[in-house]
């Protein structure tokens, strides 16, 4: 009697211990892309540990990731047109499809039910069910005389809409997907030459595309799209000689802090500060190379900047209080990407040629951890699940 009670108790204990160990929350998980291996590491950003390496994701040379709103699934968009749905609880690929020949990024809809992918070839976007990855809509980017354009700068917008830019056509398209049988497409033409990427302001109101073929940015106010696309900063840097750009800046992490917006200049070694109230240039902050990512810490106090080849071993930090450089760091060869923890106490930095990710304390600028990863590139935390435009 005594013995069996003991047995029962210990069995219960074992069960509860095992049961407990299997529970995992996903709010502080994320993915680190290993671009050359075609793998991704599931990491925990609180413990600063690797949980699992996910194999077989294809060509990840320009990969990006969005998260389901329950933060259980990560959708990885690969260069080879691959779309993979990773289960962060079970550490595995739940489903993977090849949806185009050459692709660049994606977005998840406001309601979380749709995944849109932007493609270079064939140029356009395709929309899938986030649940099954079944194709639900196909929108080729046809312009002019039956030409097809590469698509860049795809984001989700409030009102169950997607917005994207046509690199070759110089157009911005706003697509309402409330009725999937008949998506409503609004086209804005002649927005500027070669829009190369875009961002959505964190409040979901402004869609802003960076232009490569000419100075300035194209601005669309989604609260009043009937006003059309306007050009901002078109005079900026016109008289200056353009420096070569060895890597395209990315505008996903464009920093909107306070009423200021921080953007990379193109062909100038500067970060531009734009006053969001009147869209005028407030200041040009000289930095040590062509900026690639210009990202605001979640509280908006700091702006972290990385650079294109050949200055990509550095990072610089701007103090938003007085718009000056407050810190320069040299994490190592080929700093490709950065991601803040949700409230910004840490930043994770991928250093491709050193095969590591470095975690910095953003107040003290000290190293908190190093994580071994093979040729790491993009870092994406699940907190993105609840942010517009990410």
């Amino acid at each position, binding site marked *: 009697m005594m013995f069996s009670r003991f047995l029962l108790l210990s069995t219960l204990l074992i069960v509860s211990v095992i049961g407990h160990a299997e529970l995992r929350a996903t709010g502080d998980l994320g993915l680190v892309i290993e671009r050359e291996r075609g793998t991704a590491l599931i990491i925990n950003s609180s413990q600063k540990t690797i949980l699992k390496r996910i194999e077989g994701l294809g060509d*990840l*040379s320009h990969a990006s990731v969005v998260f389901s709103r329950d933060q259980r699934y990560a959708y990885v968009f690969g*260069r080879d047109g691959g779309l993979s749905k990773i289960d962060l609880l079970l550490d595995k690929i739940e489903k993977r499809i090849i949806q185009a020949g050459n692709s660049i990024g994606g977005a998840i809809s406001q309601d979380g039910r749709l995944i849109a992918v932007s493609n270079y070839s064939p140029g356009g976007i395709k929309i899938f069910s986030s649940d099954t990855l079944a194709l639900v809509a196909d929108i080729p980017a046809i312009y002019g005389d039956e030409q097809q354009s590469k698509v860049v700068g795809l984001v989700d917008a409030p009102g169950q809409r997607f917005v994207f830019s046509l690199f070759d056509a110089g157009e911005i398209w706003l697509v309402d997907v409330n009725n999937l049988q008949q998506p409503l497409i609004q086209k804005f033409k002649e927005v500027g030459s070669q829009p190369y990427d875009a961002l959505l302001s964190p409040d979901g109101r402004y869609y802003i595309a960076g232009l490569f073929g000419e100075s300035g940015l194209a601005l669309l106010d989604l609260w009043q799209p009937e006003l059309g696309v306007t050009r901002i900063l078109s005079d900026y840097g016109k008289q200056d000689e353009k420096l070569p750009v060895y*890597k*395209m800046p990315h505008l996903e992490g464009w920093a909107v802090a306070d009423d200021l917006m921080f953007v990379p200049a193109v062909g100038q070694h500067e970060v531009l500060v734009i006053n969001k109230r009147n869209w005028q240039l407030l200041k040009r902050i000289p930095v040590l190379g062509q900026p690639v990512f210009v990202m605001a810490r979640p509280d908006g106090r700091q702006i972290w900047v990385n650079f294109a080849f050949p200055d990509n071993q550095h990072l610089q930090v701007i103090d938003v209080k007085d718009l000056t450089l407050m810190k320069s760091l040299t994490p190592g060869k080929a700093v490709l990407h950065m991601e803040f923890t949700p409230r910004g106490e840490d930043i994770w930095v991928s250093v491709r040629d050193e095969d590591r990710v470095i975690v910095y304390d953003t107040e003290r600028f000290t190293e908190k951890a190093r994580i071994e990863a093979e040729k790491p590139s993009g870092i994406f935390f699940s907190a993105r699940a609840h942010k517009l435009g990410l």
Partner: protein
Amino acid sequence: MKACLLALVLVTEAWAGTPSDTRQQQLIHLLKHDCGSCHGLTLQGGLGPALLAEAIADKADAFLLTTILNGRKGTAMPPWRDFISPAEAQWLVSYLRHHQN
């Protein structure tokens, strides 16, 4: 005849100054990762066109070489002459000619 041609090719390359083994490794790394950010890690194309052997088959060496060294104005292709010598660019072009997927 074939051997003769091969010898000629080898001589030309030697004359142009074939990059050292370490430099070749660096160039391949550059091609994969830095050129790859626009042309794709596997050179199948991205913002820039594919650079696989069949894609550049009908383009002359000199044309490709000049593109690499001087870039192309009005496009996203930047000039690499500050980082790659003409001999190294020539080596890259012959490397690309033999690079299939």
